[in-house]
């Protein structure tokens, strides 16, 4: 098998397009193909879950059966056969789950090393990065670092399957409280078959001393990944959280339907950053991840939730990280860079629901389209009747590279309060030949010039990322745009 692995990697390097397109050969434990109540029971049993959770899953599944796939997004793809996919795949060694990093399958650690994730705490302590990481591989959370350090502050950061076992009261109370099982087609599907993800709880008044981070990786073929993340920031606490995603290069499409729920209690602040780099498919649109994600947070009084996303991967992105601004004086922010190239399609944006008084929201969305791709910003701002003095500012900028791509902006604005203020600005521009020539005349090669110009265009958003990841994101911008000029 090693030879096969090597070949795949070499091919990946030769094409030099998608740097994470390798496959790790590990024995997998899988549920039978297809989706039924039995699949749901299988997953729940595998995870040794309590009865209430199985019921919760089954209810979600039954509801899902009554729902239809949303078709309103500006994306096109052949119908998905939900019976033609695996809903559970775990590295086999999970049967006797590793107790420490030393027991983790070396092949897995290798994979993470390739991804540039220093799982070993020693490396982290050596100053590589001061980040606690939970790594999810296919369906299972593999290892969480820095747990001991975090526990000193009373912070819980672990796989959600672990939280279900060890902190059932917290999970039961909050899971599904922001994104109900019946919320939408993909959220219902996720609720029925989610396999793992991260859980985080920050106690009252605690400022989390380091970045928390989850890396998701889809590895197994024909497998869907359904992770679930739940972050609860208790009163007056603060946490900054980052997720990164990659997947191997495969010809078929793979489904990823995650749910992320954030709860920011009074005076709490959650900063949630995503660098999404799932495999986008090849130049002709073959393969790639279908990324259908539901992310939402709720803000109590004076709380703040800030979403920052850099979306460069996936064949299709369907994603609207949202804020429910329930508490008075709460704040929601959404900073987004979405880059599409070749035949990628992205329909992404946010929802800001202003309920409390003097709530504020700010939306900065930058869409970059190259090749034959299509990029859509879709955003909703709603001022409820009681949202006195609420304010929103939205800015949507689209940048086009070449003349075969498209950019679209679809804002939905609804105000039921006279004193609420909503501002929306939108621009569309092209990378001009003048700009490229100017850079080249100073000695900067064409592709680097394009990266520089696009990074400038995204700057407002990229600077919202935690420092450690801003540099990576800038490089990613360059990689995503390879082959789009000249």
């Amino acid at each position, binding site marked *: 098998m090693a030879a096969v692995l090597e070949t795949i990697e070499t091919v990946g390097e030769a094409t030099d397009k998608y740097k994470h397109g390798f496959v790790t050969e590990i024995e997998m434990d899988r549920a039978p193909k297809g989706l039924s109540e039995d699949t749901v029971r299988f997953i729940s049993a595998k995870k040794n879950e309590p009865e209430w959770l199985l019921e919760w899953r089954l209810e979600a599944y039954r509801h899902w059966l009554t729902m239809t796939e949303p078709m309103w997004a500006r994306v096109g793809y052949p119908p998905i056969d939900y019976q033609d996919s695996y809903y559970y795949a775990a590295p086999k060694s999970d049967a006797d789950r590793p107790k420490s990093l030393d027991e983790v399958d070396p092949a897995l650690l290798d994979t993470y090393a390739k991804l540039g994730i220093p799982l070993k705490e020693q490396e982290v302590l050596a100053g590589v990065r001061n980040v606690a990481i939970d790594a999810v591989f296919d369906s299972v959370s593999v290892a969480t670092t820095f747990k001991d350090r975090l526990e000193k502050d009373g912070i819980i950061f672990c796989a959600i399957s672990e939280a279900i076992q060890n902190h059932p009261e917290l999970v039961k109370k909050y899971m599904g409280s922001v994104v109900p099982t019946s919320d939408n087609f993909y959220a219902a599907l996720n609720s029925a078959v989610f396999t793992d993800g991260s859980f985080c709880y920050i106690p009252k008044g605690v400022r989390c001393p380091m970045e928390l981070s989850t890396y998701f990786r889809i590895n197994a073929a024909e497998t869907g990944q359904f992770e679930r993340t739940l972050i609860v920031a208790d009163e007056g606490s603060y946490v900054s959280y980052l997720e990164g995603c990659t997947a191997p290069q495969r010809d078929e499409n793979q489904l990823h339907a995650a749910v992320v729920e954030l709860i920011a209690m009074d005076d709490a602040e959650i900063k949630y950053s995503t660098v999404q780099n799932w495999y986008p498919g090849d130049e002709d649109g073959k393969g790639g991840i279908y990324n259908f994600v539901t992310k939402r947070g709720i803000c109590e009084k004076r709380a703040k939730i800030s979403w920052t996303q850099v979306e460069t991967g996936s064949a299709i992105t369907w994603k609207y990280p949202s804020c429910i601004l329930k508490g008075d004086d709460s704040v929601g922010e959404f900073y987004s860079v979405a880059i599409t190239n070749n035949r990628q399609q992205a329909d992404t944006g946010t929802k800001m629901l202003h309920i409390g008084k003097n709530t504020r929201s700010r939306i900065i969305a930058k869409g970059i389209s190259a090749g034959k791709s299509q990029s859509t910003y879709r955003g909703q701002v709603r001022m409820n009747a009681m949202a006195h003095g609420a304010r929103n500012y939205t800015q949507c900028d689209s940048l086009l590279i070449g003349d075969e791509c498209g950019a679209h902006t679809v804002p939905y604005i609804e105000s039921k309060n006279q004193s609420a203020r909503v501002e929306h600005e939108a621009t569309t521009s092209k990378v001009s*030949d003048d700009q490229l020539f*100017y*850079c080249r005349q100073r*000695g900067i090669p064409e592709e680097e010039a394009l990266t*520089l110009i696009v*990074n*400038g*265009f995204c700057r407002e958003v990229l600077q919202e990322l935690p420092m450690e990841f801003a540099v990576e994101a800038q490089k990613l911008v360059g990689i995503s745009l390879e082959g789009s000029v000249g």
Partner: protein
Amino acid sequence: MNILSIKDLHATVDGKEILKGINLEMGAGEVHAIMGPNGSGKSTLSYVLSGRDGYEVTKGEVLYKGENLMKMLPEERAQAGVFLAFQYPVEIPGVPTVTFLKQAMNSVRKARGEKELDAFEFKKIMDARLKELSIVNDMVRRALNTGFSGGEKKRMEVLQMAMLEPSLAILDETDSGLDIDALKTVADGVNALRAEDRSMLVITHYQRLLDYIVPDHVHVLSAGRIILSGDKSLALELEEKGYADIVAAAA
């Protein structure tokens, strides 16, 4: 060997011939002025030399330090030491000037097989150049040329020239859009960069720039050809008589 040798250069834009047989020899350290009425092909010449798309050379040759310049990509020409100070410097929003300068310098160094500069080494060089040219630090922190005044944009071109240390600098109507004070400042910057190993091709419509940047040679360009060459007194003569008389006399 001359730094630049242009022989019978013909070039078209959108199929229309603009340059109709230019001949020009420039030695190291020389400053040549090219003057001419609007539409004579001045800017076309600067774009052909720097390699802009859409300018097609149909005949003749251009040797730069003995190499065929026309075969090189725009960035390769820049890396080899050809610098164009733009008539209209381009705005690049969101890219801090300092980032741009560092990337440009390191691209050039990399191409020449020199070690790339780290942030500290780069800053040291930049600070020294800023001081020499009396440019305030604030300017390099702003996005490149974005919202700059006409004078600031031209000073930025001079700063870039100072940092990239070209062997051949082409100044395309550097005086356009400048009031007399700004013109003096920019000219002072250019004069400070005159050196034995740096040739300059100063393209201008008006004589007044040449009061400050005094050329060794002056050429008059008309309808895509150099019709008259002389020393700096030719510029003064032009100023006095106007292009029409000179062109008519030369024809």
